């Protein structure tokens, strides 16, 4: 076991690049295999179809990234996506005119769910894994109770535009899906957000919330906003998924773990404080590319989880080997007390 000799900002940034680099290499490899299997994959329309399918996961990963980087989890996003799709179907019920008001209502509902998650976690000090597990159960039960077990109603065509259609007549690629545009805009927005004072505060909070609080960060507000961001991202993902795939009772099931997998695959360390937006997006694309590859290889769909599990472990093990040499369970939430310093020589 190698021990850290010292931890400089340089080492930290190289660890970051290591994580992003790993997932970029992995994504390239998977794309290469796909290209060998199916050379027409990169010919525009198939690639755009892939983008359309991957966009919701990218959006979810962006939201989950905000929460994970602040040192928390959001397990409620899968349930929230399911709940939002069912709510949309029930309230729109095929009526074009109510599309926009219902979308507004969904965003409001997402805002409230995120606020509840965030406030319970920060003000009541409930561990976020329990908070969001609770909201997951509550959303799951409440929506099914409301609709009597099975989703009712129908989505309008106007609602499905975002997930299903795009800007036609674009040269080379044919159709530019709105889903891709939305995901790209949100990605750029997230990158800019992380460079803003808020993003820096969020990163500092995730790395060490005590130190961040001493430096003047309003830790509770920053974390709560991260949860709100995640819930809003889940709402956008619900609009995309609802448009793309339609309404079923199973919509959103297990998406929280896929989103966390995507973010962690991108090298964003659980426990917070490290990782880039781009890495999270690459992680989401990698997971989706992997699913596409499995389909192309005609693997039985039942074997997908096994391969997914193996690849997650391998990728994270590889990333933590190259980059972060720190023991993972090191108490990251506790500030390093000045008295710890004399211990350093014994670590070498």
């Amino acid at each position, binding site marked *: 076991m190698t021990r850290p000799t010292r931890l400089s900002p340089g080492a930290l940034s190289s660890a970051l690049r290591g994580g992003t680099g790993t997932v970029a290499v992995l994504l390239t490899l998977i794309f290469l295999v796909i290209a060998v299997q199916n050379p027409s994959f990169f010919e525009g329309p198939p690639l755009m179809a892939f983008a359309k399918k991957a966009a919701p996961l990218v959006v979810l990963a962006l939201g989950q990234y905000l929460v994970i980087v602040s040192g928390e989890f959001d397990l409620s996003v899968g349930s929230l996506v399911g709940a939002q799709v069912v709510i949309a179907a029930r309230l729109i019920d095929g009526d074009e005119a109510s599309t926009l008001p219902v979308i507004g209502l969904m965003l409001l509902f997402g805002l409230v769910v995120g606020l509840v998650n965030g406030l319970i976690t920060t003000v009541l000090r409930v561990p976020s*894994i329990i908070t969001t*597990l609770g909201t997951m159960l509550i959303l799951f*039960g*409440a929506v099914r109770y409301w609709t009597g*077990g099975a989703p009712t109603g129908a989505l309008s065509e106007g609602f499905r535009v975002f997930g299903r259609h795009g800007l036609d007549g674009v040269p080379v690629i044919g159709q530019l899906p709105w889903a891709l545009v939305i995901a790209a805009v949100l990605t750029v927005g997230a990158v800019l957000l992380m460079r803003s004072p808020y993003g820096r505060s969020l990163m500092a909070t995730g790395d060490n919330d005590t130190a961040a609080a001493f430096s003047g960060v309003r830790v509770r507000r920053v974390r709560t906003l991260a949860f709100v961001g995640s819930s809003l991202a889940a709402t956008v993902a619900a609009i995309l998924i609802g448009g793309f795939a339609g309404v079923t009772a199973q919509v959103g099931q297990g998406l929280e773990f896929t989103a966390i997998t995507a973010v962690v695959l991108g090298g964003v360390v659980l426990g917070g404080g490290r990782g880039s937006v781009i890495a999270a997006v690459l992680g989401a694309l990698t997971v989706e590319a992997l699913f596409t590859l499995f389909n192309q290889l005609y693997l039985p769909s039942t074997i997908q989880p*096994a391969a997914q*599990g193996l690849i997650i472990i391998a990728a994270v093990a590889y990333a933590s080997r190259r980059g972060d040499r720190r023991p993972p369970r090191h108490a990251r939430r506790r500030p390093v007390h000045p008295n710890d310093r004399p*211990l350093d020589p014994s670590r070498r």
Partner: protein
Amino acid sequence: MTPSPSPLRDLLDRAGTTGAVYAALAGVLVIGSLFVAFQGSHLFTAANTVDLFTRGSLLGFLAIGQTLVILCRSLDLSVGYVAALSTMVSAIVMAGDPSRIVLGIGATLGLAALIGLVNGLVVTRLRVNPFITTLGTGLLIKGYLDTRFQGPAGSIPAEFQTFGLSRIGVLPVSTLVMLALAVLAILFLRRTRMGFHMYAVGGDSEVARLSGIRPEIPVITAHVLCSMTAGIAGLLLASRFGTGNTLVYNNGYELEAIAAVVLGGTYLLGGRGGVAGTMAGVFILATLDTVFNTLSVDPFVKDVLRGAIVIAAVAVYARGRHGRTSVRPRFTSGGAPPAPPPPPPPTATPSARGGDR
């Protein structure tokens, strides 16, 4: 299980932890029985009590193992899948033959221990986050089960089905086994060197390492024991069904076990808590389920209530604990000598403070 009389100071020390959880359990029982009485029936009928204990036994096995893992600042999301795999292994190995019961139990627990060993080694040696590790092994097992088996397989001999189905009075045999295992786990955590090391590593693995503990060993041990208790839960499920069933993993046992552990006052970030609290957490959840069943609450409303109650309980509990810890730091660098340890009866609550040792 009633807490034995102990010195007042000790009682106050623990008031924020395990005592509060048992008070909550008593509260849930009282409020639940009031609700049921309001509906004109009775909560503590023989059938309901058996139902309560039966629910408690399965969750209890899973939660005991999960407690050990969480104490070491790790997590195990694979227990539901390990339990599903264990039902298949035990049913197929036993194949309805009473003489193969021991072989079946051995094979099941051995395989479970092996999975735990893999989890532990990946977490400690490859330094993969436990969340990802156990999610990954869980998905691996799920993929194997779904590809290899299309439905129930194997068969459990009638002799072994007594483990899941028979009972003494209102106490199912499985609950007695589970409570015995809980007592063993409490003794393990309070009396053995490995138990102390688990608290130390969970509290701060770097400090534990500097004190001469190899931090990997307790974590690996906890993972092995956790998978083995999941294996026992699988044996119990198999003996109830009479056959192996892969769909067990759909029941969300891992999250329920974590909820029970956290409800029982074990700190999710490791180093504080214990199995006695977990038992109270398990029976709180079991009581809720039984009460909801007796009141014939809509299953979807049941989910809503369960989620709200878990959050509320942990919130109330977190308040009490936070007040205490802010007053008294865990690792004091000097000051008063540690209080003499109280005489711990086997069923007493474990003290979760590293500062005592």
